[in-house]
């Protein structure tokens, strides 16, 4: 099986160059001008850009237990539609991904569907209860690259210390959902002028930053790696900036909704689709996140794709579940940063692909480079489209961007050299 991608402008973190890509046996065999191989099929990508397939360090696929919200299959389709070829799915499932069997089952099912690579994130503690460590070695064997208790963060710092130490044995990455549950308890919106004016129960910014500070100190002291999930506040960024200056091994992600939205958007109509945890911040937070992406204080963009059924998002802002889907809008929202000249396209390729590949130690992907895997997103930067419910491949439709127009879309997604998604105006499954 050979394929030549013709004439795409290939985006790498350092440059953009127009070339052909010869793909053979799922790998990038050759990058050069005018590749002619009569035995290969061709994909005309003239005028388009080729980015390394996106890597999402933070999704929720709800399997096992909540297949009414998302399945591995619907999640896979949503992911490749968004240009993703590798995703990590969080363990807040029912039951939690805290053992070999469940982790392996997810790997196997994903392989069977075969649209992209899915790595389950194992739970740090059994049943994510913050009491006993899961069997890290078994989780590693089943294919986990990282561990996290996600929305139920490890509260006990001495237990987290042990997790960070023990994880070194298997080179597993600990991902921390930074939230002090006692400070955030019961809140639904960022504590702000909006909550002062509207009486909504609130989550203060320090609910995130005090734990960011704690994680940084643990990582420093233990000389351990730690990855901070969905960073949403300016103050957290200040702390991470300082930590990086001190050469502490901390990495961080933020999500499209944090650099695209602010409290002003919520105040318009209190649509429960804006309800997400950590909560959307102020305009200043939003600007700080944009800046931190540009300056690499925030290493990568993750979606925190969190599907919920219509009923779970119905009701008042209080009653609705936290979370929004994000796989299918991540690229278009990130591209807005390029259009607004906050980052360039090369940087975008870093944030969506190369940086997460480095953080996860996936050296076989993340770049369009000879010898690497042929995981490629071919994108059109100008094509306009509107996000409608029918167009969403995810099983859930909970997004505040519904019926909004976007500029720029994924045209083709190649996974190991195979076309796993192709854009059509009337939408492909």
């Amino acid at each position, binding site marked *: 099986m050979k394929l030549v991608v013709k004439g795409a402008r290939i985006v790498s973190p350092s440059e953009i160059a127009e070339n052909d890509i010869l793909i053979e046996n799922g790998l990038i065999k050759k990058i050069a001008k005018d590749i002619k191989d009569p035995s290969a099929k061709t994909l005309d990508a003239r005028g388009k850009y080729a980015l390394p397939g996106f890597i999402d360090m933070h999704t929720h696929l709800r399997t096992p237990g909540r297949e009414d919200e998302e399945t591995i299959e619907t999640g896979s389709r949503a992911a490749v539609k968004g240009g993703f070829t590798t995703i990590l799915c969080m363990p807040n499932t029912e039951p939690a991904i805290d053992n070999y069997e469940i982790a392996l089952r997810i790997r196997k099912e994903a392989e069977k569907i075969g649209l992209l690579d899915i790595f389950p994130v194992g739970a740090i503690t059994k049943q994510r209860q913050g009491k006993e460590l899961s069997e890290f070695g078994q989780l590693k064997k089943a294919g986990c690259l990282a561990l996290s208790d996600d929305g139920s963060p490890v509260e006990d710092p001495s237990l987290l210390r042990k997790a960070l130490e023990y994880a070194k044995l298997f080179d597993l990455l600990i991902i921390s959902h930074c939230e002090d549950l006692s400070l955030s308890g019961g809140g639904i919106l960022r504590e702000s002028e909006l*909550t002062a004016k509207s009486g909504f129960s609130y989550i203060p910014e320090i609910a995130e930053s005090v734990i960011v500070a704690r994680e940084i100190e643990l990582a420093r002291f233990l000389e351990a790696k730690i990855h901070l999930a969905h960073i949403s506040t300016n103050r957290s960024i200040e702390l991470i900036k300082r930590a990086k200056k001190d050469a502490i091994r901390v990495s961080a992600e933020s999500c499209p909704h944090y650099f695209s939205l602010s409290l002003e958007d919520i105040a318009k109509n209190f649509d429960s689709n804006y309800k997400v945890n950590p909560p959307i911040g102020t305009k200043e937070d939003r600007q700080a996140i944009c800046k931190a992406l540009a300056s690499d204080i925030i290493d990568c963009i993750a979606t925190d794709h969190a599907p919920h059924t219509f009923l779970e998002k119905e009701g008042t802002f209080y009653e609705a579940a936290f979370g929004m889907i994000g796989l299918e809008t991540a690229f278009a929202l990130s591209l807005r940063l390029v259009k607004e000249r906050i980052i360039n396209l090369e940087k975008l390729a870093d944030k969506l692909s190369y940086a997460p590949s480095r953080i996860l130690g996936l050296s076989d992907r993340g770049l369009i480079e000879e010898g690497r895997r042929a995981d490629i997103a071919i994108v059109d930067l100008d094509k306009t489209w509107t996000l409608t419910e029918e167009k969403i491949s995810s099983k859930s439709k909970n997004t505040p961007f519904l019926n909004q127009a976007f500029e720029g879309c994924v045209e083709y997604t190649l996974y190991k050299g195979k076309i796993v998604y192709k854009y059509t105006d009337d939408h492909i499954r």
Partner: protein
Amino acid sequence: MSEWSRKHLLGLSEMSKEEIEAILDSAKAFKEISKRQVKKVPALRGKTVVNLFFEASTRTKTSFELAAKRLSADVVNFSSKGSSLEKGETILDTLRNLEAYSVDIFVIRHNHSKAPFYLSTRTQASVINAGDGLNEHPTQALLDMFTVRERLGKLKGLKVAIVGDILHSRVARSNIWGFSKFSSQVWVCAPPTLIPKYYSCLPVKITYSLKEALSGADVVIMLRVQKERQSQMFFPSQREYSEFFSLNEENAKLLKEHSLVMHPGPVNWDVEIASCLKEKVQNLILEQVNNGLAVRMAVLYLLSIGKKYEVGS
């Protein structure tokens, strides 16, 4: 002469001074009716009003019920304690079920901020906010303003001090929006734990000193202190709270001759207000109840006739 065009009464934050005046003017006329031998008028005959209370309430509900009945509306009371989701029904389901009876006005109380707003976007009927979470309680503020205007003859240029649990008070917030629209200066006074961090973005002055709040105040609104706030550590004890934040004979001297002391009720005597002031304060509290009826009649009336009403006519 401006026309009434508002379909819902969701909060004072979004209302203009003129709209508030229209309600107060109309309430004045309805207060007269309450003094008549026959207290009923046919203004809302054939209309259906549903009191949709998702949170316990006796005084506000009674007031709305009586107001609707005095206007000859058909009134249905619906109460559901706690979250409607506990019963497996969403509040929207509840609303839609009742709406099938061709309801004209829903009076809604809910423990979630903006719940009446949420429902107002999903019903044909008018919605009146009878208290939503910690957001607003507009008719309570309107009756406070009505009382002040009646007693002091104006709403402009006053010093209004609100003392107590500001953090958990929707009454405080509605009063701040309301009074500030008439160029009165509202002060709030409480221990720092009971004032939201970003409260200074409201048109309000903040002080921790009761003396400063009371000095020269034309109106003092003493808020009820819920017993559970002590166990939630907002203050160490009720004894200490009352030492620093209750209105007593001594600090009442800082007030003016004409100053009004109000309380949304029910009062915890000796916690918010010293019992020696009971006599003095009680009458006004009862008058507030009566004014509340007039204000709610006015609100029901204005929303039901919509654009036909002209201010001053």
